């Protein structure tokens, strides 16, 4: 469904953020993108919907090359890709409902959206989504009155009301506390399963990633260095992705603290750290 071929991004400063990334995401697959800061995770996600303009390579969404689209075509392509942000990126002075409805902007004409006259089925869908993420009574609250976890739920509802085929998720939990992080990750993965959505989730918390997804892609200095199942992340692989560190020691400590039988891929207190 999504295919990246030789995707590169060179910033004006000369930094090569992406060096020929190839990636294939079949429909309905949730994959986690891990890697150290500066590995190009954020750039990769932003290149896919062209918030960042890629320098070369192809991005094929449902057989269409996104990199060649003009302004109108790009808008139509962006409607198929929902995005969820690290700092939630809600428009803080708008209400929760307006934020959710803003996900439909690509389908609605300017004046209609300006006067907030969205089609009734969209409003109904928005209420349904708010109920699904547990915020139905907050519809008319302003976004800046919500807590971090609540805001991220609004962000999820906004991405889903687009009716996307693909979710681009950029560090969804980096600004949240451990418990909320898990709830948000669980919610995203459940929703993807319910709606048969593919998703690319940028995440720096390896253990959290291992808990929730079936495929992990490791990025280092703009190159894919690992692509496989969560339990393939051996200390050697982690060293390759993140550089030298005593990975085994962390694991031993983890094993000490968790009851016998719990593997690394299961939930454990250290996931929070």
């Amino acid at each position, binding site marked *: 469904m999504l295919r990246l071929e030789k995707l590169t991004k060179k910033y004006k400063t000369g930094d090569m953020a992406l060096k020929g990334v190839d990636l294939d995401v079949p429909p309905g697959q949730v994959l986690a993108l891990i890697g150290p800061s500066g590995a190009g995770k954020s750039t990769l996600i932003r290149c896919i919907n062209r918030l960042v303009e890629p320098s070369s390579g192809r991005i094929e969404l449902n057989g269409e090359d996104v990199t060649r689209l003009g302004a109108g075509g790009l808008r139509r392509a962006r409607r198929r890709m929902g995005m969820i942000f690290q700092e939630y990126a809600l428009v803080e002075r708008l209400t929760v*409902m*307006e934020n959710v409805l803003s996900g439909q902007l690509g389908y609605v004409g300017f004046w209609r959206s300006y006067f907030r006259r969205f089609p009734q089925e969209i*409003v109904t869908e928005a209420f349904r989504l708010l109920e699904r993420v547990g915020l139905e009574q907050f519809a008319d609250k302003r976004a800046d009155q919500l807590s971090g976890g609540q805001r991220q739920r609004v962000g999820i509802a906004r991405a889903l009301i687009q009716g996307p085929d693909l979710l681009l998720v950029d560090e969804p939990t980096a600004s949240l506390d451990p418990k909320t992080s898990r709830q948000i990750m669980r919610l995203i993965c459940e929703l993807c399963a319910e709606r048969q959505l593919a998703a690319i989730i940028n995440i720096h918390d390896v253990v959290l990633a291992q808990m929730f997804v079936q495929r992990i892609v490791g990025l280092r200095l703009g190159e894919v260095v690992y692509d496989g199942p969560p339990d393939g992340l051996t200390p050697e692989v982690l060293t390759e992705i993140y550089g030298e560190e005593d990975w085994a020691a962390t694991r031993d400590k983890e094993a000490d603290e968790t009851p016998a039988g719990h593997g690394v891929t299961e939930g454990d207190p250290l996931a929070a750290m």
Partner: protein
Amino acid sequence: MSDTGFDASERARQWRPPPLIASPRLRWFLGLGAALYFALAIGSLEVNWLRIYEGLDRGWAFVIAFTNPDFTTRWTDIREGLIESLVMTVTSTAIGIAISVPIAFGAARNIAPLPVYLFCRAIIAVSRSLQEIIIAIFFVAIFGFGPLAGVITLSFATIGFLAKLLAEDIEDIDKGQAEAVRASGARWLQLMNYGVQPQVMPRLIGLSLYRLDINFRESAVVGLVGAGGIGATLNTAFDRYEFDTAAAILISIIVIVMIAEYSSGLIRARVQ
């Protein structure tokens, strides 16, 4: 959820963004009031279409004049006027700063005793409440025509601006730093010099440069009532419908203001 289910679907049928003003009565009152006011206000404009039609030619002539300004015909007047304006600007800003600084210290509640505070605040209030041009009229009446009246006007106006903003900055200083200096046994003047001055100096420089810029712009205005500067030349040009000369003067003012803003930006960046 069964009892709220109906409620939710009922709500789901309609959604409007919450209005800015919650009470509908107040909303209508304000809306109608604003509409009525604007209708009355626009009605009071007394537009004389014939006069405007006649003026269109002159307006167009002025626009043309801007593309082709005439610096030469009245060059001596323009040059002398501009120099006088600049001279007035420098003098009045310098005098204004010299008077403003002590007043600013006096008008900062955290360092001045109450009687001094009230006295200095009163001076600031008087200076701020009247337009430069009105003050200029009075000073021209008292000191006679010429740049001296203008300089005194602008110095007086500078006090209200500079002393007020500087006093606010002094009131906002970091108390910890001042306390540390006082704890070392410093006298009042030493406290000002070591604890307060370093903190407010960048702001004082920034404000002074900004006021220099304002004083130049104002010096072009006080000339309209005979207080010296380029304003008199400009007034004459307009009276004689010499739009090309007027355009030349306006362009000169704009260019000087631009240079002043640009260089003050450079200086402020260095100080802060």
